[in-house]
C-alpha cells in the first residue's frame, strides 16, 4: 500500500456510536446501523489508506479516524439530463403567451 506523507490533506472516517450505543428513540432502520463521521485535515504522520491515523483539521483540532481518501475532492454536479425540465419551460410559455388568447 502506497504510503502518504505527513502533511497530506486527507479525509478520515470514524464510528461515533455503535448500534448498541445509539439513542433509544430511533426508527428501526437507523437503530441497526452505527452513527458515522467524516472530516478532513492534514496527516500528522505517514500512513496508508485504511490505517488508523490522526489529522489536524483546518481549525487546528486533532481528530482520530480511519484514512479513507487522499486529496479529497468534490464530485457533485448538475445531475443527468432530466427531459421533464425542458417540458416545464415550453408548457409555461405556451400557457402564458401561446394559444388563442394571444393571437
Amino acid at each position, binding site marked *: 500500500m502506497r504510503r502518504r506523507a505527513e502533511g497530506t490533506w486527507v479525509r478520515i472516517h470514524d464510528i461515533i456510536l455503535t448500534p448498541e450505543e*445509539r439513542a433509544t428513540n430511533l426508527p428501526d432502520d*437507523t437503530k441497526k446501523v452505527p452513527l458515522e463521521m467524516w472530516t478532513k485535515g492534514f496527516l500528522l504522520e505517514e500512513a496508508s489508506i485504511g490505517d488508523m491515523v490522526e489529522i489536524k483539521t483546518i481549525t487546528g483540532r486533532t481528530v482520530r479516524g480511519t484514512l479513507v481518501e487522499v486529496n479529497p475532492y468534490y464530485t457533485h454536479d448538475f445531475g443527468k439530463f*432530466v427531459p421533464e425540465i425542458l417540458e416545464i419551460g415550453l408548457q409555461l410559455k405556451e400557457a402564458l403567451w401561446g394559444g388563442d388568447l394571444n393571437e
Partner: protein
Amino acid sequence: MNKDMSYSAVMGRRSEIMKQAVGIDYSVFEYGKIGFDYEKMMRETGYSLQEMQEIQGQTGVGNTPLLELKNLTALARKLAPEGKGARIFIKDEASNPSGSFKARRAANAVYHAKRLGYKGVIAATSGNYGAAVASQAAMQGLKCIIVQECYDSTGKGQPEIIEKARKCEAYGAEVVQLTVGPELFYTFLKLLEETGYFNASLYTPFGIAGVETLGYELAIQCREGLGKDPDVVLCTNAGGGNVTGTARGLIKAGAEGVKIVGASVNLKGLHMASDEQFNKKSFTTGHTGFGMPFATWPDRSDVPRSAARPLRYLDRYVIVNQGEVFYMTEALAQLEGLERGPAGNTSLAAAFSLAQEMDKEQIIVVQETEYTGAGKHLQAQLSFAKENGIQVIFGNPAEEIPGENIILPAHPSLLQAKDIDMDKLRVSYIRNCIENNKVTELDSADLSFIIADCNSDKETVLKALNELGVSVN
C-alpha cells in the same frame, strides 16, 4: 482529568455546555411552571433594529432587491377568476454574501460571538446557515466548524448538503459530516466542549433578530416603490426563524396589517430520522419534517428557549408538494430570468397559488430566494430522485406521495397550496407544552404564556388543557 465522553454523560452535561457556549442564562426569563418572558429575552439579549442594520451593513448583508415577477403575475391572472391575481414580488436574498437570507442570522450571531471573546463558532446545520456562518466567520476572523447530517449508512450523500459542505470549506470552515440521526446533537455538544467555541445556534435571540431587518426592509421597499404595505408576506417555514424574524421586522416597521403566511414542502410519511428514507426526499430544508415539529414545539431546538416561535406570528400555514416547488423553480428561470435554488422557492410556489385568490390590486411578497449551484439545483435533485427510485411524472401534484414520486403539474392551474389547520397545530403545541414539561396544573401566568405562544384565546386554551386533564389555579 478525563471527562466521560459517553453518549449519556455528554447529554447529561447538555445545559452546562450550552450555557458556556451561548452566553445566555435563560433561567432569568423563566417564570411559573412553563412560561418565560419572550419579549424580555428578545429585548435584553438581542440587538435593536438599528444596531442590526449596522452590524449587517458592515459585512454587506441585507438591502437586497425587491423584484416584481411580472410574467408570473400575468400567468397567475390568466388562471385566476376575473379581477383576481395579486402582484407577486420576490426579495432576492440570494444576493447576500453567502447566497441566502441566513447571512442575516449569521451576521449577528458571529458578531455577538466575537464581541463576547469567543475564538470560534460552531453551528449544527445541513442548510444554507452553515455557509452563512462560515462566510461571516471568515469576514470577522473567527474559526468555524459546521456539523452536518449528510449521508445514509451506505455513504450516499444528499447532493444539496454536499454542495453546502463545499461552500463552507470554501470560506475556510471545518465541516464534520455525519450519517442520519438525532445524535448529531451529541457530536455537536462534544465539539462545543472540546473547543470552547460559541454555539451559533439558529435559534438564539440575536439569530432571530437578525431576520427582523428583512421584514423591515421589505415593508420600506413596498412603501417607497408601491406606496403601500404588502397585503401578504410569504415565508418558507422550517425551524420557524424565518417567519418569526420577518414578522417581527414588519411589526417594527409598523406594517401590522400584513398577513404572514408560512409555506413548507410536504414530506408527509417520510421519517426524518430514518436512514433508509433519508435519500428518498428531494428537499432537505423548508419541509414539513421540520416545519410541523418546530411549530408545535419550538423548544426542541439546540437552545433551552428558542427565539423562533412561529405560531405567535403565523396567520396562515400552507403546504406545497415537491413537484410544485421544482416546477416553480423552473418557472422562475424561464419566465423571469432568475435561476435560484429550489428550497428557497417553496414560498414562491405557494405565492403563485395564493395570488390567484387575491385581488389584482393586492401585493404578495415572497421574502427570499437562495443561491443555486452543483447539487443544489432542480436538475441535480430530480436526477438524484430518479436514481433513488423516485418516479418523476407530470400529473396532479395533489396526488404526489413523498418518497414514491414527484408529480410536476401537468398544467400551471394544477398548482394549489393547501392549508394546514392552524387550530390543530395550536392544540398540538399545547399538548407538547404539557407533556414535555410534565405538568398537571398551571397558574394564570402560565396560561397567559400559552395563549400568547400559540396566538390563541383563553377559551380555546382552557378547553385544550381541560382535555389533557390539566387544571389552572
